[in-house]
């Protein structure tokens, strides 16, 4: 079996977000880029499954839609342990654009398990995985919080309101993962970092796809007012503030 993990290249989650061009584009100066946290956890789970599979999982590949400046992020995925990287050489425009580019490549390269994060921490549109499964005409399972291969069968748990749901599915399928899929992302080891240098990173040119959504304008949230700390003993003050200041009760 072969696993593919779709990874998005996103600004570090502590980045101070700024916009330029009258609020129409994101200011990328001095931004540090990382693997989208959900994707990184999906990759971690993929690696765990591969390591425990005794060879049944042949390879883990990562794929990204992005320009050359997203290669450090792909190399990091290779350092974490992925065997191969693919980059589709295009600036991601919207979820449909990304899903369509991925689908185009996946029609040529076959994988059994295709994993996506449930959302990306920059645009949070939460639809690439679903669109991808549709375009590939394969099943998709969303909110995956547990994934394993047992006797060649895919076992999945999904988080649902108030509990878990166990499902199984045929391959190939698209798994859209939640944070619970792995506890902590794997830290790339020195050996991993060294070997990332020599692992294959294939580049595909994009196909002509029109984005369906256009970003018109961005606004930053109003700055939050300062957090008030109240001593645990001082319940009266808490009630008073909730009542009179926050007007919540």
């Amino acid at each position: 079996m072969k696993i593919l993990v779709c990874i998005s290249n996103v600004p570090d989650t502590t980045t101070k977000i700024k916009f330029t061009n009258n609020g129409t584009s994101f200011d990328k100066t001095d931004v540090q880029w990382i693997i989208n946290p959900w994707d990184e956890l999906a990759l971690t789970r993929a690696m765990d499954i591969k390591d425990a599979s005794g060879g049944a999982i042949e390879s883990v590949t990562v794929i990204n839609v992005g320009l050359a400046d997203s290669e450090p992020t792909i190399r990091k995925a290779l350092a974490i342990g992925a065997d191969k990287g693919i980059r589709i050489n295009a600036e991601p425009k919207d979820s449909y654009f990304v899903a369509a580019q991925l689908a185009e490549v996946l029609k040529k390269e076959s994988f059994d398990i295709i994993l996506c994060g449930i959302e990306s921490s920059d645009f949070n549109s939460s639809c690439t995985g679903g669109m991808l499964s549709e375009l590939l005409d394969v099943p998709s399972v969303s909110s995956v919080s547990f994934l394993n291969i047992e006797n060649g069968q895919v076992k999945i748990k999904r988080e649902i309101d108030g509990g878990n749901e166990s499902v199984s599915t045929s391959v190939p399928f698209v798994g859209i993962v939640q944070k619970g899929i792995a506890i902590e992302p794997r830290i790339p080891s020195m050996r991993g970092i060294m070997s990332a240098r020599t692992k294959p990173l294939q580049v595909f040119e994009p196909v002509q796809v029109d984005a369906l959504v256009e970003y018109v304008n961005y606004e930053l949230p109003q700055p939050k007012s300062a957090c008030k700390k109240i001593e645990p003993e001082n319940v009266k003050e808490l009630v008073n503030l909730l009542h009179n200041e926050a007007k919540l009760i």
Partner: protein
Amino acid sequence: MENKKILKSGEFLVEETEAKNVFIPEEFNEEQKMIAQTCQDFLETEIYPKLDEIDTGKHEIMVAALKKAGELGLLGIAVPEEYNGFGQNFVTQMLAAETIGAGYSFSVAFMAHSGIGTLPIAYYGNDEQRKKYVSKLATGELIGAYCLTEPNAGSDANSGKTQAKLSEDGKHYIMNGQKMWITNAGFADLQTVFAKIDNDRCLSAFIVERNYPGVVINVDEKKMGIKGSSTAQIFYNDVKVPVENLVGARGEGFRVALTILHMGRIKLGANVLGAAKKAINDSVRYANERKQFGVLISTFGAIKHKLAEQVIKTFAIESAVYRVSSDIDDLIEQNKKSGMDKGRVSIEAISHYAVEAAILKVYSSEVLDFVVDEAVQIYGGMGYSAEMTVEKGYRDSRINRIFEGTNEINRLLVSDTAMKKAMKGEFDLFGIAEKLSANLSNIAEKKNSNENYYAEKKRYIRNFKKVALLAINAATKKFDKKLISEQEVLNNISDIMMEIYIGESTLLRVEKLETLKGNEGVKIYKDMLDVLVFDSAEKVRKSAVDAFSAIEDNVDKLINAVNDLTDVLSVNIKNARRRVADKLIEDNKYKF
């Protein structure tokens, strides 16, 4: 960086370096950044959640952390690939040391193991010793320690009493003696012990395994800081050390000890850099949260001043740390080409830069003490609470001025080593100094009408160098061979030299940065340089005036010359500092 001249240690006093020939941290490659990120991720997942637990001093916690670092390969960064390491260049080793340097007690255990605990055998051991020990130290299967200091041999390290006598059958050295203040002693499997064979004048180095009969390890010392790192005395009672455990040649131990200390000093520079950035991050976060008089304390000028000073000093040591690291890499490459013994190319290159190593050790550890002290101050009463990491950082910082050679010893080494090297004919220092001293009246280079920003700053640095040369000339003329006992004057000269090296490194970095970030992007760095050089001029002047007053000859003329040489155009350093602080406050972390 082709055609770059490799300078002798201390030669920066009489040579100019071009900006294009210095390496700056903005040039780290993708792989180096990834290694740093791995170190950072390691601290965040394995160390920061357990800081208090680590500081209880329970050995198993520190050992587990070291093993975990070993699994990630972090203990083998400097070790050659043949011995399970990753053979990284010196710049990368320093970047890793910097990142781990923010790890409080863990940082000390890590550095003692992977630096002074591993590298004596890696650099000086024979192939068998390397295979047997280094390949396991690199993975963390074994933990190492370095045993030089004794109760009566601290700064005077060669005066140790620990003895090794060849056994009658010639198979063992019988070791007797005592070591003190040994980092990692409580759990290290392996010790590099320095002892004298029979009545040798010089030390020899030995590998001693913890479980050899007769090795007795005391309980850990109770310490002011780095409480999670084990420090203990070790006794050797008729310990049979196999003859094949002698590292290097008989009598070569003192050289091993010294060269490893040069390495340790340079790496300490990187370590404290990481610790300083951590303290700055803690400082600015607090200043951006704490309100008094209805406003955030980060809006107060007095607090901005502190934040800016923390940043400027840290940026300056960072510039010097990576400048010398890359110079070492260049020399390693040259040594390789010269056909030098493969094991020694690195340590020879590192110890070549003895003057710069001492500068980094002294200057950086004093910067860190400043930075952590202001961190506590920015926290106010909260800074005095043991629950705050700035309190831990404050206590943990202090050791850096004591170990790897005290700052007194290293400060003396700065000027003394440079002069010794010049005396040996490695470069001309005294000739230039003498010539310069003959004509004091027009000594200062004056402003040139079409001088640009960098040319102006370079002129200042050249003038500061002249101050150092005047002082060297006057001191050697006056005291001659007795100069070594005029430590105060030597220290004045060292202080001037340190200002020069740190200032020049920062200047060259900013100049090179302009080629990367452009005119606009480099403005904030020019602010830092403005403040640094402005302050430096005053420090250089004061040190020189102190020296000349002690030398007494020709005082007035020399002091006049010094006043001319340290005359720098005034800039509004208050506003410059504010801009630096404002960027820090805006980013809410050190991001320069």
